[in-house]
């Protein structure tokens, strides 16, 4: 029996692999990657690079302002995302939620908000409340809520029920349980995920301008529309620097927090 089963399993695998390859080739044809343009790739990229080097920025003040705005949008989006996620996570976690149906409702909301990409949210917020940084902030906040609420709720669900029971036994109110029992237990998970989300938000903030939500993305689209290749590269480098800078700052903050704990442990 055994060799037969092995043979069957192997055959199933081969069939799946075959189907995958057929689907892949079909996709290749659909995407049009075997286009004549791909064979001109070298000359096209060469042209592009010739136009790009040396990178230039024609309006440094505007670009710098847009980069700063992107960073600010990311900070604000993360701030509100974190604030609302904490509150909603208290309702989403099964062990602290007032009722189980509320928990499911909040989690379903989070799943939907998470599945719609941030840029689509930005597009919708622009239609709903107009141009500027505010739709960008709200879009990032909403998209962050989807992800952060899930991880916060999971962290809360995994904490030791003994802690909560002990607090309840002392006659603590629901608010006191949250402040003294839950928040200290999830603090480290909370910090690392919030920082991670900030890194994601920086990247989103850099591209939000593509749909008109302010920031450096708009400058990039503008430059690419007028075929100013050197400016495209210049602005891309600014975005690169901006993301690196933000990552350095978050790493510094994280290291500093860890260092303090280590120092106190000595």
């Amino acid at each position, binding site marked *: 029996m055994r060799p037969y089963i092995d043979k069957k399993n192997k055959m199933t695998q081969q069939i799946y692999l075959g189907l995958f390859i057929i689907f892949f080739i079909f*996709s290749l044809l659909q995407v049009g990657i075997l286009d004549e343009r791909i064979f001109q790739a070298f000359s096209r990229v060469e042209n592009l690079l010739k136009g790009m080097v040396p990178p230039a920025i024609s309006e440094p003040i505007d670009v710098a302002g847009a980069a700063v*705005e992107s960073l600010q949008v990311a900070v604000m989006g993360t701030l509100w995302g974190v604030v609302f996620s904490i509150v909603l996570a208290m309702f989403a976690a099964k062990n602290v939620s007032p009722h189980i149906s509320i928990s499911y409702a909040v989690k379903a909301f989070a799943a939907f908000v998470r599945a719609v990409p941030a840029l689509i949210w930005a597009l919708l917020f622009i*239609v*709903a409340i107009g141009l500027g940084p505010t739709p960008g*902030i709200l879009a990032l906040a909403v998209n962050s809520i989807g992800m952060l609420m899930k991880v916060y709720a999971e962290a809360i669900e995994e904490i030791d029920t003994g802690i909560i029971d002990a607090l309840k036994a002392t006659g603590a109110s629901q608010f006191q349980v949250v402040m003294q029992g839950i928040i200290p237990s999830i603090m480290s998970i909370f910090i690392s995920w919030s920082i991670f989300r900030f890194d994601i938000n920086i990247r989103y903030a850099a591209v939000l301008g593509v749909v008109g939500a302010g920031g450096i993305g708009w400058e990039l689209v503008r430059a690419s529309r007028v075929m100013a290749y050197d400016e495209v590269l210049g602005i891309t480098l600014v975005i690169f620097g901006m993301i690196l800078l933000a990552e350095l700052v978050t790493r510094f903050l994280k290291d500093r927090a860890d260092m303090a704990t280590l120092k*106190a442990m000595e």
Partner: protein
Amino acid sequence: MSSLAKQIDTPVEENKVPDMYKDLQRRKKVILKNRLVLWAIIAALVTWAWTGTNFSIAFIYTGTANMAAFIFTDLLPPDFSAFGRYLQPALQTVYMSLVGMVISVIFSIFFGFMAAKNTSFHPAIAFTSRAIIAFLRAIPALIWGITLVVAFGLGPLAGTLALGLSGIGILGKAFADVLEEIDQGQVDAVKATGASWFQTMGQGVWPQFKTGFVAWSLYKMDLNIREAAVLGLIGAGGIGYTLQGNINLFQYQQASVGILMIFALILIVEYTTAKIRERLL
């Protein structure tokens, strides 16, 4: 052994308790001071961002209210007659993600092997590969899309290449990290039998690498479908292009079909990748 561990091991002597209390207070002070500095930095960042973007708490309320009004009056009910128009772009999004994933997997295997210290030919090559990977990762897919649309024209080709390029940044790093963590003993054992480079890779490295390889590649597929859905906004093919067309023409009820289809696409792809992951691992 750190001093803390020593304290835990040695029994507490009565006359030393006041000293220990002082020590505890000193430690608490260190942590408190550090926390204050951190919170001050964060508060400064937030104030800077708050004033810079002219934000006000009222925006949250008005934003939510406007959004709710927009959703219930303009977006709903979805006009499902637009479904046919969205089907082709939706499928194109899937094709783009798949091809983008395969491109990034192929190149990431190469860059990953070159970037991992234990499989690379030379430390200089490892360093260069890491640098290339880091550069590709730091720039979002959408920005690669903008640049590639300039080079290759509008259409799914630019979007697919953008997905592939940004994918190398993510998968290359992941593969290199997985490779660096494999057990060198197994590789050495295969090498000791006189195996060639390819045999060593196939018999010593691949079995340990497989799990991480499959998991990360499927994760990339999940990411790609999200990226591909918005690449259309810059004309790089896929469902986003049709969606933006509808929004620009104020056809919100048709646009809501597009949003629902993006949602469904993401769920279907995530479900499928989860099933494949279960089967393969």
